[in-house]
């Protein structure tokens, strides 16, 4: 199979747990209200963290996945090896999709299930959410800005940001520098892999529990590409699983915005 090259613009993302029980060989994806009619652009299998946003332990069994297209009931992807969606393997070079999936019909086949307790596979579905995005203007100037968030509890909301209020985001990039631009101490790798980002615009959560590590893009072949999304800082937050005092440091972001 040829690796498609490039990345598509997206404007929504949701993390989805698929719980695997011992001795289960075929596991169906759960029905998810958000994804029912959404055009899926990319799917990530999050295999670089150990715990999901619910605190459940993550597993990566050798498996094959089958996705049905909702309208035609065609098998768009038939018994495709799960490592093709692995963020570790793909280095940001995501498979380009453009389908509405029938998730309750779609399933994962695990030939050799050796689990002794329930664990989950964690997927992120990147999709199109037109209500928070606007078309990209190729001729518009872009600018790189920065913002940061000092974690202080399990769920920490962003502070209002006057510079970036109503900005059109093309990308949000996190990194683990020695210190933030304001000189604050930055979270370490341990915190980084148990932190999840939720972005909201009004009442709409259009990025839900997306693992923070997906926004670290310094070693990726292709960066994420957002379709000029807008979000409310004071409604949006980072949540840390089982937080300890040592987790309460700052998260640093750069962002690319269209001017």
């Amino acid at each position: 199979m040829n690796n498609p090259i490039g990345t598509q613009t997206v404007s929504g993302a949701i993390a989805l747990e698929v719980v695997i029980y011992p001795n289960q060989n075929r596991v169906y994806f759960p029905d998810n209200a958000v994804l029912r009619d959404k055009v899926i652009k990319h799917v990530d299998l999050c295999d670089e963290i150990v715990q999901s946003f619910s605190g459940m332990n993550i597993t990566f069994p050798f498996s094959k996945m089958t996705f049905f297209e909702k309208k035609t009931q065609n098998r768009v992807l038939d018994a495709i090896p799960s490592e093709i969606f692995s963020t570790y393997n793909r280095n940001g070079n995501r498979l380009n999709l453009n389908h509405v999936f029938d998730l309750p019909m779609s399933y994962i086949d695990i030939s050799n299930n050796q689990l002794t307790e329930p664990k989950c596979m964690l997927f992120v579905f990147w999709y199109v959410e037109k209500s928070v995005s606007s078309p990209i203007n190729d001729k518009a100037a872009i600018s790189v800005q920065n913002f940061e968030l000092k974690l202080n509890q399990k769920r920490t909301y962003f502070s209002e940001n006057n510079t970036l209020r109503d900005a059109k985001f093309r990308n949000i990039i996190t990194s683990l520098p020695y210190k933030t631009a304001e000189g604050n101490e930055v979270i370490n790798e341990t915190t980084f892999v148990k932190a999840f980002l939720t972005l909201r615009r009004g009442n709409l959560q259009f990025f839900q529990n997306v693992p923070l590590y997906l926004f670290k893009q310094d070693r990726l072949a292709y960066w994420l590409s957002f379709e000029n999304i807008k979000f409310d800082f004071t409604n949006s937050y980072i949540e840390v699983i089982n937080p300890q005092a040592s987790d309460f440091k700052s998260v640093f972001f750069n962002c690319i915005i269209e001017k």
Partner: protein
Amino acid sequence: MLQKSYRKMILQNLACFEIKIDSSSGRVYFNEDILHGKTIQHIWLFFSTQDKFIGNPFSGADDDSNFITQLDSFSDSTTFLNVVDKNGEYIFKNMEYSSLVLDCENQDNLAVIRSILINRQIDTNNTFFSCFLAPGYSYRFLMYVSYTTKKVEISDPVITGSFTCEIPILQDNRVQNFRLSDYIPKSYRNHKIKQIMCSSNREAEDNFFKFIKPTSYLEIKAENGYIEHIPTCLLTEQGKTINVYFDNIKIDFENSFLLYRGDSFEPIKESITFLY
């Protein structure tokens, strides 16, 4: 929609700057006249790595000045790049360095692929690095700025011909400069070059990649452009995802050089293929 800017990289001019910072540096300003009035396209930072030594193209001596900081050793420090345009508006505000990094080992020339297109003139007097460094440390890395002085000329990526030269690298000498005209017949010198591919015949010890990347720089003076100290490791064919194109440059081979700055435990050859 696929992002068009990811598909190709056209270099018309490339400027290279040596950036030195130490723990006394809060801000390092970047006031270089050469960029005045030029339309800046991209900015990258270039580091050596722990596994692969590459020296400093600005140094002619095999001493400390020939040392480019290894990316791995920069983890206890950080620097943010701030760039403003002629109207005083930020193009980069506190851009963390890791998003701009190129290194001499990277298999896919990642930062080239995903680099941010600036396409504006910048105010070099108000462009600076702000630094947070561990006490007692000092670092030296290279900053590359690609820029245009006129409309891009190349329109057809199709290659119509090529020629190759092989340059023998002597043993036990980390600093070697070679004038390209010594290796290229005069009959080849009038072509407008679209691409340059470089390779080394040094075999990798682990045999995982058949050949390891070259450790040199090309300084190319052309009638219609200047490419300063481009690392030849960025011009290898291992990057499967993109090719770097030059803007139909007509090279002055008498004033163009290969600057070897790697380890040389054995005699090797570096070859340069010019495609037109």
